[in-house]
């Protein structure tokens, strides 16, 4: 316990590092997965290759992907960019199918009436289809967020500092306190991410907040 | 025979779904339970095969108390058809139908032959045997559901809104075939629906339930429409009861007036000879085809010029059918045909109504 109190600064620094290493890929992943998911939906023939292809990327174990990144990006092994890109790949892998299925869950009647009122495909996507797909996309984002927070800690093994560094520190010094602190901080951070996404999704879908018709 | 003796279902929260139901479903006939949602009709049905256990009273099948039997054994002896068919997605059609025979331990080839026979019996092509449920339409799945319930040839069948989830045209077909099947098989059937039209169409006996599972009236369809016991039943039986009731009343004895008719290809002059505003057209076997207006005929009568609005009726059909034939005919003269569909003559709506107003014969409640 005293170790934790003496090292609050370190824990804070690691938490911040961890937060952005997990959050930035989440945003980038969502930005990339949205057009991919839309295309998979729009052009039926693309669905299987896109979803299966991104799904395969998700099978690669994180440590292997972190180590292979320099080979692909030409970066140094210690560069945090490796982690950001790898985590973005995982996020895209998870969210592409979510976006495609979320857009697919928008009722045909809604799309037809939007079209009948003269909305072009682009306007319809941004003002009707994506807003209605928010609940499904948010659910996928929550899974991706929790998974990202957990996976980022592995990057401690390639020397990128974040909460995972507490695990390696503690293990190599045979000292349990940092490990417990790291585990707790990771779980809290994951819950925090989860909460933020839930709140954002609620704000974006005011029509779901009011009770059903009497 | 199924007999409810004060059957009651009170749920743990105190809701009374069925409050002391007394009802007899006679052997070999169709008893329909009908009523608004919340009237406990499905609960009543599900108490028979103990999918829901009654909290009071008894339910007897052929004088055996269902409560004294092993629930699974009891159910294997009762056909069960539900709204969405509930086919097993992972089994082919033939295997779905074979479910109960297999539970009963029938041998392989008997089971298979029985299943194949039933596929055809319910009006499906034999080639469907190896298909999976998702390859069939809703109506086809429901036919398989009926075949599956019939597989072990149970004397008693429970049917819970079996035709509610299909479109009206298919529902009509399924109802017709169900009646045909029942006329061949003579099962004791308890049938639940929320649709009073379906109830009076299919039921030999209709039991109307009110909310809380209380029996409001039980009667044959004609009596129900003609003589509802109270406002609730009257409201539920709906509009046009008098007219719909005619469906259960045999046509009054009438002598159709002979109708001058022409055949296809008749010249305009010939058509005008009768002097009538509308002239009936028949084929070479004197089967009615439609009506033409002589005033508009400029060339020999052809099928595409015919007015086909009128329905045709038989003398031994229902009052409703014969009145409808008169009302729907553009000439005001309803076409009456014999058993082979050949023209007998015509009647007017005034004649039908006049005949209906004279006192009914001794048997006014019989089925058509």
């Amino acid at each position, binding site marked *: 316990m005293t170790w934790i109190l003496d090292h609050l600064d370190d824990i804070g620094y690691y938490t911040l590092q961890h937060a952005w290493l997990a959050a930035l890929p989440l945003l980038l992943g969502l930005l990339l997965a949205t057009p991919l998911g839309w295309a998979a939906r729009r052009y039926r023939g693309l669905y299987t290759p896109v979803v299966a292809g991104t799904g*395969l990327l*998700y*099978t*690669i*174990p*994180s*440590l*292997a*992907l972190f*180590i*292979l990144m*320099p*080979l692909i990006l030409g970066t140094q092994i210690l560069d945090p960019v490796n982690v950001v890109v790898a985590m973005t790949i*995982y996020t895209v892998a*998870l969210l592409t*199918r979510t976006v495609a299925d979320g857009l697919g869950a928008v009722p045909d009647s809604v799309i037809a009436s939007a079209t009948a009122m003269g909305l072009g495909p682009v306007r319809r996507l941004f003002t009707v289809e994506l807003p209605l797909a928010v609940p499904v996309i948010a659910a996928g984002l929550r*899974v991706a967020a*929790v*998974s990202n927070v*957990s*996976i980022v*800690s*592995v990057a*401690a*093994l390639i020397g990128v500092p974040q909460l995972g560094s507490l*695990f390696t520190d*503690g*293990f190599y010094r*045979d000292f*349990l306190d940092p*490990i417990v602190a*790291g*585990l707790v901080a*990771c*779980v809290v951070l*994951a819950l925090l991410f989860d909460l933020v996404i839930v709140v954002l999704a609620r704000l974006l879908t005011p029509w779901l907040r009011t009770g059903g018709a009497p | 025979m199924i007999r409810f003796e004060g059957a009651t279902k009170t749920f743990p929260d105190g809701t009374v779904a069925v409050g002391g139901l007394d009802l007899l479903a006679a052997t070999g006939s169709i008893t329909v339970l009908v009523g608004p949602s919340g009237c406990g009709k499905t609960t009543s049905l599900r108490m028979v095969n103990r*999918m829901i256990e009654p909290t009071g009273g008894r339910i007897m099948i052929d004088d055996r108390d269902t409560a004294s039997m092993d629930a*699974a054994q009891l*159910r*294997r*002896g009762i056909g*069960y058809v*539900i709204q*969405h*068919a*509930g*086919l*097993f*997605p*992972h*089994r082919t059609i033939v295997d779905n139908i074979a*479910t*109960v025979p297999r*539970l009963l331990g029938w041998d392989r080839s008997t089971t298979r032959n029985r299943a194949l026979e039933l596929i055809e019996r319910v009006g499906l092509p034999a080639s469907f045997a190896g298909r*999976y*449920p*998702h*390859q069939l339409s809703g109506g086809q799945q429901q036919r398989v559901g009926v075949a*599956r*319930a019939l597989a072990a040839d149970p004397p008693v069948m429970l049917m819970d809104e079996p035709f509610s989830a299909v479109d009206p045209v298919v529902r009509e077909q399924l109802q017709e075939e169900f009646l045909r099947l029942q006329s061949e098989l003579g099962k004791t059937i308890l049938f639940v629906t929320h649709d009073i039209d379906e109830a009076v169409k299919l039921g030999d006996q209709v039991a109307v339930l009110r909310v809380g599972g209380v029996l409001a009236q039980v009667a044959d369809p004609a009596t129900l429409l003609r003589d509802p016991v109270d406002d609730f039943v009257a409201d539920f039986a709906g509009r046009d009861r008098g007219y719909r009731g005619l469906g259960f009343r045999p046509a009054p004895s009438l002598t159709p007036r002979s109708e001058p008719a022409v055949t296809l290809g008749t010249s305009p002059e010939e058509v005008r000879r009768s002097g009538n505003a509308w002239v009936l057209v028949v084929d070479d076997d004197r089967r009615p085809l439609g009506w033409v207006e002589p005033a508009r005929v400029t060339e020999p009568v052809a099928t595409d010029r015919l007015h086909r609005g009128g329905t045709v009726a038989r003398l031994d059909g229902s009052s409703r059918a014969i009145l409808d034939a008169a009302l729907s005919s553009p000439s005001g003269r309803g076409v009456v045909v014999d058993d082979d569909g050949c023209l007998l003559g015509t009647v007017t709506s005034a004649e039908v109504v006049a005949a209906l107003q004279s006192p009914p014969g001794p048997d006014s409640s019989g089925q058509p």
Partner: protein
Amino acid sequence: MNDVLKWLTDGAHWRGGEGIPLRLGEHLLYSGLALLVAAVLAVPLGLWVGHTGRGRYLAVNVSGGLRAVPSLGLLFAAIMLLGPRLSGEAGVFIPSELVLVVLAVPPILAGAYAGVEQVDAAARDAARGMGMRGWQVLWQVEVPNAMPLVISGLRSAALQVVATATLAATVGLGGLGRFLIDGLSVRDYAQMAGGAVLVAALALLVDLLGATLQRLVVSPGVTGQTGRSTARTRRGGRLRLALRS
């Protein structure tokens, strides 16, 4: 890139007590054992939860909550807590296997109970109504229809186990992870990248195996691989069970 290829094709790395075949064998042994134990525990439990609806709340929260726990931290904690009480190799092997099992249970459990839960209520009702007993409903109707999600859960668990077994090299376990960890510690990029390629290939192969298994044991009536299919039969078959390290 050339160095990695050279490392992978060097015959010396394919022989002996620290060669690729042996490490691969170890990796498969650790992963297979953990998956087997987890499946034996979690499949029946998940089917039971799905069939009876009992313990559902617990199952949902345990399998959801464990997703947030980082596997690396769990592994280190397990070694430090249990290792000293066990002697020799067991001090590494048993805690590692235990962690692998703990991480494999949630996706398998979730797949099994979600699989049973999403079985068409009408089919279940019909099964009971035709006189199937509880276990007959489970074996003849619920399990065959739950198969896509049961296997999906097993696949997720297999990936999780293969990935975490790689990390277990840091605590001294064998397996393909050795190449990555040893490469890291001596700054031999060719070795760690070569190992990473092997680990990635193994993961892909395992997933492919899972896909084949799915094709073999799931009825075409459930997957809809027979042409026309309705929305009802497709629904739920694609629930994603993500849990990885």
